[in-house]
């Protein structure tokens, strides 16, 4: 910790001569503001963007890794755990941007949740249900029996880690321009498992209150507040967005702005009412797709600019990972959790059967391995309830997410590439691309 503290102080040491010079000038030049003690939000935004972008692009171009890995690495390297150039204060300052980025991506995942497909395809319903239940049961049992967590915290660990990472999956698909049946199933599994994990997460909030403080009022009202609050915000803002968007031409830039602005409104309201942003925006996406009978916003896509926000999101996620608390034991436990989780997903897809051949179903299982931003944010949300216990109880989930930050995007990309559904898949045949 001492080393980390010294590292964190490094920028202050570097700035000391500058500060001295500034204060000398300040005595003569009365228009000068006081020496800026913290970096301006926009400047921070720009720095995170450039650093994340450079590392992501470099890894992508040189090693062929998904760019997301580079963004997370940038955050990890410059975050409080290593170099400390992104301080904890700066992280808090950038949190609204991360919320907005995660919110937009969750909105998109929610919009892609097509329940009609499940109605027409019983095998898919079977595989998603087995995935959800098996992942929860195996992770819960692992945390309870092997790690020795209490039932409530084991349930929290399962809630946080049972689903795939919607943001990573979406960005990896977008980056590799993947299209096809494996891709579609990865998105559907991710969306449905996310929905299930949010339900479990909401219930777990109550269970934790009950276990930690025997406060039954909070145990009942908190989950209700989260569920009803998220639903009301999502419903209200989705309705408002559709109402306004109806006045505008479909797929117009104005509609894109309405989509983004309404998403940001939902993010803001969720933050004001202490309702999880990821849940609210996911629900808003689902509702937008379900109640949009006139297809008003159905074809209106997020602007390319959401990549900018995604870079910031993953830099911040990287910086939020508690590497300073890493111990070999927790590391091994996290690897164990990830293996159990991977086995649950592979078994679910293999057991589900159906018309999709087994190798392709296993590719779907590989593609849904990522674990990332939503898990990290969910873990911090739960840990924040009882910080003295929660932080250590959820270290396992956070380390699992940390490991998967690096492996997850690569696994998802391998699955998409092996399925032959990425844009570059046919160049191997000597095509002209």
């Amino acid at each position, binding site marked *: 910790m001492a080393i980390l503290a010294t590292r964190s102080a490094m920028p202050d040491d570097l700035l000391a001569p500058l500060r001295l010079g500034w204060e000398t000038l300040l005595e003569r030049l009365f228009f000068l503001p006081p020496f800026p003690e913290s970096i301006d939000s926009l400047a921070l935004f720009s720095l995170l963007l450039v650093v994340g972008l450079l590392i992501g692009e470099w890894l992508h171009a040189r090693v062929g890794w998904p760019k997301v890995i580079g963004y997370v690495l940038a955050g990890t390297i410059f975050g409080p755990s290593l170099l400390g150039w992104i301080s904890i204060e700066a992280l808090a300052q950038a949190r609204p941007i991360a919320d907005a980025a995660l919110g937009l991506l969750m909105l998109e995942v929610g919009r892609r949740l097509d329940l009609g497909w499940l109605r027409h395809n019983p095998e898919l319903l079977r595989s998603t249900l087995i995935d959800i239940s098996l992942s929860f049961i195996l992770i819960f049992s692992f945390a309870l029996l092997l790690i020795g967590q209490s039932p409530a915290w084991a349930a929290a660990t399962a809630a946080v880690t049972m689903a795939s990472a919607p943001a990573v999956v979406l960005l990896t698909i977008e980056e590799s321009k993947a299209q*096809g049946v494996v891709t579609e199933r990865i998105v559907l599994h991710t969306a449905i498992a996310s929905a299930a994990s949010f339900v479990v997460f909401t219930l777990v909030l109550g269970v934790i209150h009950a276990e930690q403080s025997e406060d039954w009022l909070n145990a009942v009202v908190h989950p209700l507040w989260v569920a009803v609050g998220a639903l009301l915000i999502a419903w209200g803002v989705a309705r408002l967005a559709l109402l306004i968007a109806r006045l505008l031409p479909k797929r117009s830039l104005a509609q894109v702005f309405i989509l983004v602005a309404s998403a940001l409104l939902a993010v803001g309201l969720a933050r004001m009412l202490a309702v999880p942003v990821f849940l609210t925006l996911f629900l808003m996406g689902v509702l937008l797709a379900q109640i949009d009978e006139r297809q008003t916003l159905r074809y209106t896509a997020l602007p390319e600019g959401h990549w900018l926000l995604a870079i910031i999101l993953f830099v911040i996620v990287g910086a939020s990972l508690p590497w300073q608390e890493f111990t070999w034991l927790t590391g091994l436990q996290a690897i164990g959790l990830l293996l159990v989780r991977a086995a649950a997903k592979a078994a679910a897809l293999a057991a589900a059967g159906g018309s999709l051949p087994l190798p392709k179903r296993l590719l779907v299982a590989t593609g849904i391995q990522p674990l990332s931003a939503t898990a990290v944010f969910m873990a911090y949300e739960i840990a924040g309830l009882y910080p003295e216990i929660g932080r250590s109880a959820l270290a396992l989930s956070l380390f699992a997410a940390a490991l998967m930050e690096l492996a997850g995007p690569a696994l998802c990309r391998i699955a998409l590439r092996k399925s032959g559904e990425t844009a570059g898949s046919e160049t191997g045949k000597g095509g002209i691309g």
Partner: protein
Amino acid sequence: MSKSLGEFRHSEPLTLGVELELQLLSLRDFDLTRGATDLLASLDYDGRFGDIKLEITESMIEVSTLPRASAGGIAADLAGLREILRVHCARNHIAVCGGGTHPFHRWPERRICSGERFDALYQRYGYLAKQFTVFGQHIHVGCTSADDAIWLTQALGVYVPVFVALSASSPFVDGVDTFFQSARLNAVSAFPLSGQCPPLANWEEFVRYFGMLQACGIAASIKDLYWDVRPKPEFGTVEIRVCDTPLSIESATALAALAQALSRWLLRTRPDLQVARQVHVARYNKFQACRYGMAAMISDPVALGQRPLRESLAELLELLAADARELGCTPWLDHLQPLLADDATDAAWLRGMQRVHGNLNDVAREAAERLLARPALEPREISR
């Protein structure tokens, strides 16, 4: 590798077969999607209505009926194939759609299907192969002899504009209104072996001509000839290849019925074809039909003048009435009567949808719903 033409296989006279190239769409935005190989791999279907197979890119499939004696049989097969597709496309989260072009897809995003022939086509034609993601209807008419097949190939060539105008369903390309009723054929005409069958008198001349193409290294098999109408020796048929895939299987059946009645009338009356003169106006007349549809002005190299296509089509339908009665396909020809009006063609319908919705995603969605919509009367009832 050059392939011998082989013998012209005997077919029952005027038997029909229909192939439809169909679009595979994403249910999210109704853009073309890649999914043909997986869709076909997941098919649980015994082939009772005909075949469902891959086409050159992953965004298309081809359905083909069994050989049938009547248009009613074709309608029943197409209805059966439609039901198979309805179930399996829903299971695979794909929409299926008619129409000659997709209104707004981006051709560089298309993926060539795996397979030796598709690979060879891609290597040979480069980007043209991807731009060939257009969707046509092919109609096979059975012939009893090879010489009849060559004669009928020439005779049907004169009626190419009629088939183009009646089936036109490709007004949009790359997200813009092309002003054409059928823009699909512009993608076909980029291929060096597209166009008309040259004036050939009989099977012997055709074999000699094809032998020359093989010797010159231009064509290896009959599949390399992308003619508007061509003989198909292995099926014992003449194949009309200029139609856009209509938006409904009822229209596809009606076009097949027209081909059958017309072939019967031609083979029965054997009109003087004036092939040597027709060859000079064929390309212009086809352009007229592609561009203007029912409003095309068709040049007559014998009477030396122009005539509205709509007028000659109305006359033709009257002329074919007796043959249609004999073949039992009068109700299907009646299905074509409303198309004589400009605003009843599929191209006009698509433009109408664009005006209503103001975007092409909804146009593609409506077209997909139209293909799968069951008509008020089932085809068998119509054909009675």
